[in-house]
């Protein structure tokens, strides 16, 4: 989605991916349905949507790390010419962490409290790349800490001696341990203070430029997306509501959900009296409405929306949305 004369090459293509969660005795929850996206080298893609809309599920599937109840029920994840969904467990191990890695949601609180940060980073390396040379390994750990802005001598400290921001930096160092090309960052700054958040984002931006990383930034903060991303995928209740470059999403959104989401977000550059809230709640994924998933809350709803689920339409070759209004116009 980068408008450039020499378009960077495509790294990953997700085509019509659908994922269910199955629990015995209950109807399946359609957590992700028919999601298609493209990620190019060095691109920063924002994935936004309300809590429970399937963001983490979609990302876990790209790593083939879905929980036991998760089932990929359709689609493909094409990464540099191979469909990751068809790889054996041994083959996916060559991709996971080494080419695509992930900073998990809330992970900075999941560091092992009784082991030093340095040990945990060493392990993140040696689990995937055998390294017998102790000095080389130590150097690599120091190098990674330095890369994320932590003084290498602090590798001997324990997680509780780190602040929240430093723990998140350590998580980023682990995600970078095996020099991946794609880093998925799932809500990397949500629990952090604004200034620490700015530090982490600056770090991700620097790393992206320095290492040529492609990043998928998962967040519910539209401000972060506007500041950081090249392209944006807006999810609603498991489906793609809208997908385009960042400028189009913020300035010419076509899906009523994107429009409402933007109106609900406080904007310091344009303080208004009241924020528009979106009444109602997202659909239950095991009891979806028959038509468009957003219909029960949509301000522009009409009859057809309640009976027929909209397909994804191309507004332009780089702008997709799933709304009957767009198809009509």
């Amino acid at each position, binding site marked *: 989605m980068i408008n450039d004369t020499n378009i960077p090459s495509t790294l990953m293509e997700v085509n019509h991916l659908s994922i269910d969660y199955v629990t015995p005795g209950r109807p399946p929850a359609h957590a992700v349905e028919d999601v298609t996206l493209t990620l190019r080298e060095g691109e920063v893609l924002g994935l936004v949507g309300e809590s429970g809309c399937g963001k983490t599920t979609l990302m876990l599937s790209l790593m083939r790390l879905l929980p036991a109840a998760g089932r990929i029920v359709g689609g493909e994840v094409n990464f540099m010419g191979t469909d990751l969904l068809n790889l054996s467990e041994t083959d996916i191990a060559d991709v996971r962490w080494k080419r695509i890695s992930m900073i998990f949601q809330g992970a900075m609180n999941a560091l092992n409290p009784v082991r030093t940060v340095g040990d945990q980073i060493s392990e993140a390396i040696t689990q995937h790349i055998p390294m017998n040379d102790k000095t080389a390994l130590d150097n690599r750990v120091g190098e990674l800490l330095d890369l994320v802005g932590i003084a290498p001598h602090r590798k001997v400290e324990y997680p509780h001696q780190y602040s929240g921001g430093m723990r998140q930096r350590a998580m980023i160092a682990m995600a970078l341990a095996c020099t991946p090309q794609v880093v998925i960052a799932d809500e990397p700054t949500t629990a952090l203070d604004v200034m620490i958040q700015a530090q982490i984002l600056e770090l991700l931006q620097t790393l992206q430029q320095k290492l040529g990383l492609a990043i998928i930034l998962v967040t519910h903060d*539209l401000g972060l997306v506007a500041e950081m991303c090249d392209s944006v995928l807006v999810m609603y209740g498991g489906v793609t509501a809208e997908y385009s470059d960042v400028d189009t999403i913020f300035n010419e959104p076509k899906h009523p959900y994107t429009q409402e989401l933007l109106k609900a977000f406080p904007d310091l550059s344009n303080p208004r009296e009241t924020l528009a809230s979106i009444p109602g709640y997202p659909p239950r994924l095991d009891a979806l409405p028959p038509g468009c998933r957003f219909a029960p809350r949509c301000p522009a709803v009409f009859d057809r929306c309640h009976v027929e689920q909209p397909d994804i339409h191309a507004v332009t070759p780089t702008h997709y949305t799933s709304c009957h209004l767009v198809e009509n116009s």
Partner: protein
Amino acid sequence: MSKATMQPEPDSPILEVTDLRKLFPVKKVRLFGAKDRFVHAVDGVSFQVGHGEVLALVGESGCGKSTLALTLMGLEKPTSGDILFEGDSLASQNSRGLKTWRRHIQMVFQDPYESLNPLMTIGDIVAEPLVVHGIAPNREEREARVIRALEDSGLKPATEYLHRLPHELSGGQRQRVVIAGALVLEPTVLLADEPVSMLDVSIRAEILNLLADLRQKRGISILFITHDMGTIAHFADRIAVMYLGRIVEIGQTLEVLSNPQHPYTKALLSVVPVPNPRLRRERIILQGETPNPIDLPSGCRFHPRCPVAFEQCPVVDPRLLSIGDQDEIPHAAACLLVNAESQPVP
């Protein structure tokens, strides 16, 4: 932002805080001659809140926002300084007076997921403060007040919620229950400690609008605590920016947003993400974290992180002084670059 101009500094403030300090002693390590050490959580804060005013208190984690709120509620005893509520001094309250105090000043706590008892119904949760305070002892009257509080908090019809348990509600609904629990005592001041940080964007707007509404309808004064400047611009009348236990800038919301004076305020504003990719700006990212409030930096406590500090800053502790003409609502900042008239540290 017409509300701010509609309600200029009222004649008599509802809350008046004067040189408030709250120090926590640090656990002593028994060494010869070791001095007592303190966490300077709130370190000399003065401000007023007007009737029906919304004052936003902004600052990084650990700057003393929650401690200030707990002290205002009479839940922490000030180390020094005083708080006046409608002219009455906190220092002069006995335990009965304190109980009344806490009925008038209510707090909405930081986390909507932790502040509700999972085993109690919504109706019982909201009624509990009435029981504790011995208000509306008769059952019908109590239920009527609970219903009013729930409906004022946007849970309509209240009868739908009375018998539910917290886990049956969404995050936004739970936060509304917390607010209802604070409203049921019909307080005149609401201390809202990060009431929306844990919530999704769409629910956040809902709660912010609810608070704005309550001020409008009930004339409640609100102290809105947050670390995110982005959430307050829409309804706060004034903003107070806190750093390491002190207020470093205070003024009318639009004035502070459009004409920030303190370098810390400027930095905080610059890192608020603006949801418009055409407005990507230069961010002033302060490195490191807030120093620990046990060993405060000398002079201006912001100088070690200040991008524009000069040689006087480590030696002179700047006072919070007004800027420009004083015919309107005061705008004040504590910075030597803004106001040279300050006291050298003794």
